Each structure stands twice: as structure tokens, then as C-alpha cells.
């Protein structure tokens, strides 16, 4: 039974309403406890900002899509190589690093929990195998349902309970965590060379629209009492004028969960575009933020873009084809049988490119214009907007108007006429940054009940101690110190063990995979449903009995059981 005492920590823990108190934190056996006598290890955190471990609620780090990004970009593999050192394995890659690369670099920034944003259930094994080699973080996987034929059929039949039964079966089978919709209907249409422009377009082969998919999925998701809400990548990503589609989508979202949001809308920067073409492209972040401010049942993450090289990867196949036609660079396109698809394109975001500069500004505008930080999460849709190692820079930009203005000076000179950013005075506080990088994620993902995102008795001892003295640091002026301080923790603690010290990872962090298992009544148990079994064996290239991911793929894991109302 290992014990640890962190003394004199300067704690910000928004879930517990602790806003900068100096206190001791006691840990026994991986959990936070009231007190420990004669601790095995003592850390003096005097003058150091101490937060619950960081949580990324939308990132792409593991799975077939990520791996193909590695495969098709040897130039990315050559960037960011580190050799084996001490307990640390060799790593390679910058925007799509190896699993250890992801894990070490997140750990040095104080992140202890990661949600893979898009896992095709049929290819779940690969994701779980990579989770096992992401040793410093707990991992969860959003599971893709945007083009699932059984689900689309149930929606067309108006049978939401059956839809819920289908979601339940796939989530348990794939050992997934949340319901992800990527360009619902559009990815399916792409299988036939088409796309949808917004929520009211019909989908080929089914007599339904994206809007029906979104609303029915939300209803089904809540029937299963899942920890997380539906996680939506809206239709029409990345096109000028798409903000109207985003607003229409938000207007149609029902408010049906009183504990958390009913919809998590991801990488909203890519969905906040005005104009009718790239020539009059402009920011509509104000309109989007206003809509979000009016709707307490919607949580967003920003999908911030930062300048430099990266790789875009998404299940949104038609969107990646459009990017390919723009750049004529490498392109991967992938179809996943009855379920979804994907595409991958390397990109470079440039300061002197007007469109890229506007994208950068939109992400910041969203973070500054959504009033409630609990409903606006900081993320880059790693690596789509930027590799996650840029997070400290994003934090500094949000905390310092001076830094924003300085960066703005270096952009394409027409940017000012297309965005609202220069007029925004708001500078986020320490508490707000803490919310947007861990507490809001814990709440939106429903992980507070599982001891994540806070530091009181009973919580998992996932703790990030940063070499930042809050009392003597003015974030508005000392933005370099913010960047450096959030880039490398003094200590990152995972389940009560120091896993990273000043950037050097020491040992593996007893990491777990979290997955959901909704219990449904026998009538909605798809493993006994004749039509489901028949359709499965007829249309999949894999037998239903061979489909579920066995627990042996998971290693240490936490099964989150829920009682469904069906």
C-alpha cells in the first residue's frame, strides 16, 4: 500500500470550487485520501500550481486511421525522433507520433486521460492494442455510428428503442465509450460518391436526413444512460458559409439530460465559417458563440488551429476529398463496410495564408466569446488543427491580449477585416484555463462519478504539478512563462505514482481503458435478435461471433456498466 504526501500545493480545483488555496494532498493506493501517516514519499509543491490531471476529450492518438497517418508520412516520422533513455522507449513522429511519443508528450504536459475521438467499431482491436502502449494515460474511445446500416435502418423504421439496443451491442462489442457521429449521413453518402450539404438533405438508400440521425441518436444515447452525450462532428465541415448549418443543428438539439449536456459538438472552429466562397471567407464565431450561450444543453470544444505542419484525419471522407482537391498532396481514403469511412491529408497552416489566419482567429474567438468555460473546451482536434504539444501556446493566447495582438501582427494583413478577434479584450483566468483543460472535460464525459477531474477524498490521484508560481506570474504579460510552465510539469502523477518528472517519464502509470456496457432488456439484446444476426452475417466480411473485442485485448480496464431504460 503505497502512500504519498504532496505538501503546500497551490491548488485550483474548479469541481470543488477551490480557487487557489495552499493545501496538502494525501494519496494512498492510487486514490486521494484524507491523511496519510509516515508517507512513503513526500513532494514539496511550495509555490507550484497544482491541478487535477489534464483530460483531452477529443484527440486522435490510436487506431487504424492514426496509424495510416504514420504510414503515409515518413517525413513526419523523421520529425520529433527521440532515442531510448532510461525507462523511456524511443519515439518518432511529430503530428502523428508513435504511441509512446503521444503518451510521453501528453504526460509532460500533465495530461492523464485521453479520449480517442473516432474509432470504427469494426477496427476497434487496433485502437485497443495501441491504448495498451499508451502507458501514462487512461484511454477511452468514441465509437463511430454515423453510417451504421443497422442504426440507419432503425431510424428509418422510427424505432428508437431498437436503435438504442444496436448502440448498446456495438459499444460493448467494440469496448467503446461514447457515441460519435461524424458528418452523419454524409460519410455514408460518400460511399456512393456523394455528400450532404446540411441536416435536411436526404441520404442515399435510406429515407432519412442527418437531422433525424442526430436527434434519434441523442434520444437513444439517453435511453442507455451513458456517461457521455452524443459527440457530434457536424455536417459540412470546413466549407465557407457552413455556420448556418451549425446553427440549424444546434436549434434542433433537444435538452433531455439534467446532469450534463445533451450534445457535445466537437472542433467547432471548423464549423463557424461565413462567406460564400474562399474569396469572402470570414469568421462567424460570434453567431455560433451566441447560440451556444443560449443553449445550456450544448458543450463545444474549439478545434483550435495553430500554424505549422500537421496531418488531418477524420471519418469524414468527403471532406478529406475536398481538401485533396485543394492541396493535391497525399490523400488516403478508406471505407469501413457497414459503418463509416475515413480520409487523411497532410497540411500546413500558414500565417500568411488568409484562410488559415482566419481559422486561427476563429478558434480563439470561440473560447473568448462563449461565456461559460464549462461549456467550451480547449482542444485542437489533435492533430487536425495542430498537434497537442501546442496546447500551452493556446492557453497563453487565451490568457494574454498582448500575446494575441503580437501574434496577430504577423498574420496576413487582411485578417483584421474578416474576424472579430482584435476587438475582444477578455483574458481568461487561471480558474477558467483549469476548467477548459480538465474539469469541463470530466463533467462533459461523465467521469466525475469515476473519480476523475478533481482532487478530494476518493478521487483518482491523477495530479499535475506545474512550475508556475501563480502569485508572482501575471499571465497577461508573462505569457512566455505560461507557455513554458504548462509545457513541462514538475511532477505528473498517475494513480498515485510519479510518472513524469520535469519531462522525463519514469515508469508506466497503471493505465486503464474505460468502456461502457449498457444492460438492456432481452427484447433489445441484439446478440439474440434474428434480423440483426442475419443482416450481420450477410453483409459484413466478418462473422458476428468473431466481431466483439475480447477482454484479453484490453489489459487493465474499467467496465462502466449502465442500466438502460429499454
Amino acid at each position, binding site marked *: 500500500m503505497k502512500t504519498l504526501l504532496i505538501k503546500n500545493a497551490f491548488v485550483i480545483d474548479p469541481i470543488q470550487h477551490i480557487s487557489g488555496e495552499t493545501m496538502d494532498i494525501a494519496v494512498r493506493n492510487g486514490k486521494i485520501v484524507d491523511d496519510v501517516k509516515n508517507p512513503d514519499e513526500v513532494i514539496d509543491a511550495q509555490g507550484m500550481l497544482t491541478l487535477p490531471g489534464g483530460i483531452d476529450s477529443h484527440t486522435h492518438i490510436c487506431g487504424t486511421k492514426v496509424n495510416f497517418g504514420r*504510414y*503515409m*508520412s*515518413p*517525413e513526419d516520422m523523421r520529425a520529433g525522433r527521440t532515442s*531510448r533513455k532510461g525507462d523511456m522507449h524511443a519515439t518518432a513522429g511529430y503530428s502523428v507520433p508513435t504511441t509512446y511519443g503521444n503518451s510521453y508528450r501528453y504526460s509532460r504536459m500533465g495530461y492523464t486521460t485521453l479520449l480517442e475521438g473516432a474509432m470504427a467499431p469494426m477496427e476497434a482491436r487496433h485502437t485497443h492494442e495501441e491504448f495498451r502502449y499508451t502507458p501514462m494515460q487512461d484511454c477511452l474511445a468514441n465509437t463511430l455510428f454515423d453510417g451504421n446500416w443497422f442504426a440507419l435502418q432503425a431510424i428509418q423504421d422510427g424505432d428508437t428503442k431498437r436503435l438504442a439496443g444496436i448502440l448498446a451491442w456495438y459499444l460493448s462489442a467494440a469496448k467503446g465509450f461514447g457515441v460519435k457521429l461524424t458528418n452523419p449521413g454524409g460519410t455514408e453518402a460518400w460511399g456512393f460518391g456523394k455528400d450532404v450539404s446540411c441536416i435536411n438533405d436526404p441520404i442515399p438508400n435510406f429515407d432519412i436526413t442527418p437531422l433525424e440521425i442526430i436527434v434519434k441518436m441523442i434520444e437513444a444515447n439517453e435511453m442507455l444512460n451513458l456517461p457521455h452525450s452524443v459527440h457530434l462532428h457536424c455536417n459540412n465541415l470546413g466549407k465557407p458559409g457552413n455556420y448556418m448549418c451549425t446553427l440549424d443543428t444546434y436549434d434542433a438539439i433537444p435538452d433531455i439530460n439534467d446532469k450534463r449536456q445533451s450534445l457535445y459538438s466537437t472542433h467547432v472552429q471548423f464549423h463557424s465559417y461565413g462567406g460564400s466562397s474562399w474569396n469572402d471567407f470570414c469568421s462567424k464565431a460570434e453567431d455560433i458563440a451566441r447560440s451556444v450561450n443560449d443553449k445550456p444543453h450544448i458543450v463545444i470544444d474549439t478545434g483550435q488551429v495553430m500554424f505549422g505542419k500537421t496531418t488531418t484525419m477524420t471519418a469524414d471522407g468527403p471532406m478529406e476529398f475536398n481538401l485533396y482537391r485543394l492541396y493535391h*498532396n*497525399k490523400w488516403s481514403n478508406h471505407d469501413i463496410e457497414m459503418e463509416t469511412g475515413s480520409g487523411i491529408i497532410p497540411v500546413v497552416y500558414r500565417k500568411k495564408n488568409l484562410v488559415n489566419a482566419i481559422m486561427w482567429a476563429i478558434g480563439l474567438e470561440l473560447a473568448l466569446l462563449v461565456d461559460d468555460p464549462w461549456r467550451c473546451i480547449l482542444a485542437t482536434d489533435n492533430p487536425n488543427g495542430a498537434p497537442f504539444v501546442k496546447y500551452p501556446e493556446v492557453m497563453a493566447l487565451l490568457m494574454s491580449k498582448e500575446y494575441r495582438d503580437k501574434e496577430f501582427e504577423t498574420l496576413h494583413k487582411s485578417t483584421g477585416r474578416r474576424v472579430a478577434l482584435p476587438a475582444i479584450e477578455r483574458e481568461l483566468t487561471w480558474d477558467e484555463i483549469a476548467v477548459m483543460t480538465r474539469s469541463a472535460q470530466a463533467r462533459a464525459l461523465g467521469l466525475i462519478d469515476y473519480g476523475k477531474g478533481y482532487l478530494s477524498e476518493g478521487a483518482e490521484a491523477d495530479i499535475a504539478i506545474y512550475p508556475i508560481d501563480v502569485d508572482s506570474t501575471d499571465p497577461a504579460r508573462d505569457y512566455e512563462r505560461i507557455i513554458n510552465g504548462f509545457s513541462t510539469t514538475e511532477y505528473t502523477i498517475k494513480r498515485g505514482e510519479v510518472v513524469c518528472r520535469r519531462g522525463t517519464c519514469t515508469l508506466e502509470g497503471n493505465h486503464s481503458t474505460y468502456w461502457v456496457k449498457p444492460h438492456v432488456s432481452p427484447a433489445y439484446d441484439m446478440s439474440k435478435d434474428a434480423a440483426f444476426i442475419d443482416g450481420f452475417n450477410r453483409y459484413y466480411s466478418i462473422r458476428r461471433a468473431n466481431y466483439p473485442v475480447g477482454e484479453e485485448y484490453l489489459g487493465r480496464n474499467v467496465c462502466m456498466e449502465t442500466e438502460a431504460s429499454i
Partner: protein
Amino acid sequence: MMKVILEVKERHKPNLPIEAECITPKNFLDPEREFHVWKGNKELDITDIFHVRKDGTAKSAEQVEITIRGDSSHIKRVGEYMDGGKILIEGDIGMHCGNFMSAGLIEINGNADSWLGREMHGGKILCHGDAMDYAGSGYRGEKQGMRGGLIEIMGDAGDFAGETMAGGEIIIHGNAGDMPGVDIKDGRLTIMGDCSRPCGNMSGGECRIFGTAYDMLPTFRNEGLTAIDSVQITRFSGDYMSRGLGTIYVANCKYMD
């Protein structure tokens, strides 16, 4: 002038590859430099693998001549990023010889394994024996292979010679395998012997085949007879799967039945 002789020692398991990217003329200019090579995940001193002899002094890479002796058929990445000087390999050489080289000469008396001169920018590689697959190509997923310089292979080449080639010249005196010049964008690929399915998705550059091209792709347009060095040869433009801006000259061609 500096002469460096690296003689591969008798090895217990000679098939285990050794990664030796430190072997370039420039690196021997620094008398203090330590040379490490890798066997799997073990880092070894160069003297664990080679007898090393150094004679004379040099001020620039151009004045350094390295000779590799003994069974070097599993020594990989020799001459990677080489930017001048000479490497003479008396026997065979392992994979990735001359990766990214920009200047100087690598001469191989025996055969070369795959990826000879991968993504090279300049300089010359002369291989007196055969070269395996992917000579002068790009790595998997790379958009551009060889961008400059010359690779001359006196024997045969394996499959995918000059894949994604984007400049420079490759001359193969024997036969080439399947799909030489696939995705070629620029530069010149010459095959004195036979090959099959040349230059799929060609978007620029030139390929000359003085033997027979088997399974010629139907997406190239026959532009009629012409002559190169008084050899009667047929000119094709293509690949029309791409923009059709490349040229293939073929002495004999056979389409798939």
C-alpha cells in the same frame, strides 16, 4: 588525403543487420568523434563490428576515401546524408545505402540491397552488380524519390526502381523488375534490358527502355516511331491516368493478353 579502411569482423550471426549511418566521409574529419552503430536495440562501438584503420589527414569530406571490406551485405545506411568524398565497397552492401546523399561517389563492386540511393539529391552511385528493389525511390509514403544525381547499375535492378523519382538519372544496364518509374514526376530512367509495367501514374520525366516492356499499360498513347542513338524506338506519352505529361521510349513493347 585520408584513407579509412573498415573491415567487417567475423560475426557470430552475420545475417543480423547493423545500422551504420555514421559511415560518411565527413564524419571522419573530426578526430574526436565516437562512432556508434546499432544492432537491433543495442548500441555498439564501431570497433565491435569493424577493424578500423585510418591513414592520413583531410580538411574536407572530398579528401576522405572510405573502403569497406569483408561481408558488408547486412550493413545498412552506409553513406546516409553523405555530402562529399568517396566510399568504395569491395563486396555487397546492405539496404538504404546512400540515403539522401547530396554529393560524392559511392562505388559498389558487388550487389546492393534494396533502397539504394533512396531520396538522393546529388552525387553518384555506381553499382557493378545488381541492385534490389526500390533503387532511387522514395520511402513508403514519401511523395518524392530521387531528386538529383546519378545511379548507375551495371547489373539488374529489382522492382519499383525509380518509384516517385523527381529528378536526376538512373541507368540500369541489365533488366529492371516490375513497375519501374511508378509515380515518376521528373528525371530520367534508362533501362537497357527488359522490364514490366513501366511508369504507372507517371506525371512527368522520361523513361527509356531499350529491351522489351512487358504488360505495357494501356493508359499511355503511342506517338509513333523515333530514334535514339540510331536505335528505332516508339515514343509514348502518359500516364493519362494522371495528367499525361511524361514520356516513355520503348524499343519493344507487349501488352497484356
